């Protein structure tokens, strides 16, 4: 699974996710990536979010939309909302990660797996990539 979230110089956010799913999947199984609100969501009032991992858990929690709702309704920061949802995912036994960015330009990532391919760049930060 791959994904990207961005905020542009006009303050608009967007999210995109794309995947081949899980190796050996059967019966037309679809995970969270294409489900708006589960693996992908964007709302200028809150954030843009893209998720990766055990999709069934992200679907059940509605992770991408839940992060935006917590930011919009409780004033939580992008970072804290991301952390809360990955923690909740872990409690349910789910594994995975997510990236998020708010209209204020703060970008974040959070994951509970040993590794996540990830990167970020901004108008005030050099590009950086990481795996572990």
């Amino acid at each position, binding site marked *: 699974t791959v994904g990207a979230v961005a905020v542009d110089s006009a303050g608009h956010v967007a999210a995109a996710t*794309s995947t081949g799913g899980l190796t050996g999947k059967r019966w037309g199984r679809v995970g969270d990536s294409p*489900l708006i609100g589960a693996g992908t969501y964007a709302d200028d009032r809150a954030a843009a979010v893209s998720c990766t991992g055990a999709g069934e858990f992200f679907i059940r929690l509605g992770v991408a939309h839940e992060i935006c709702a917590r930011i919009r309704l409780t004033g939580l920061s992008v970072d804290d909302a991301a952390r809360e949802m990955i923690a909740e995912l872990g409690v349910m036994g789910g594994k995975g990660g997510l990236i998020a960015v708010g209209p204020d330009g703060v970008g974040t990532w959070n994951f509970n797996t040993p590794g*996540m391919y*990830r990167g970020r760049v901004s108008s005030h930060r050099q590009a950086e990539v990481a795996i572990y």
Partner: protein
Amino acid sequence: MTGWTLVIHGGSGSMTRGVLSTADDNAGRAGLAAALDAGGDILRGGGSALDAVEAAVRVMEDDPVFNAGRGSVFTAEGRIECDAAIMDGSGRTAGAVAGVRTTRHPVSLAREVMTNSAHVFLAGAGADSFARAHGVEAAEPAWFETVERRRQLDEILANPDAPFDSGMKYG
């Protein structure tokens, strides 16, 4: 707001230091850097977040390192079925596709659904037909297939106790 930010991911999983070969580690980092370049150039030039996320994901869909587009994992039946979604925060418009097999960039097909259809989510052969009708670039199934993903499928199918990649070994 005058600044811009792009964040990307290439999947999460059980990869740990030392499990990935140096070559795979380098290939992953190079793929991520290429995606940041593609999306960052758009934002640096004043382009939209929507264009930037599509451009970054397209680069990773073409990179066999990542499980999306070319280099996707196989289903138990030995096929490749891709899913993708895109969403614009300014109007909360969205497009998504699932189970597509002959469209080179599923994320661009999702954007075409968002922009030029009355729907949000199209699936299966219908989604691929929509792509052909809207001139979204096609690709033969062979374009998506890689030897390494075929090996991973064979490994999983050889172990009936692990019906699919529930351990996200190939996240």
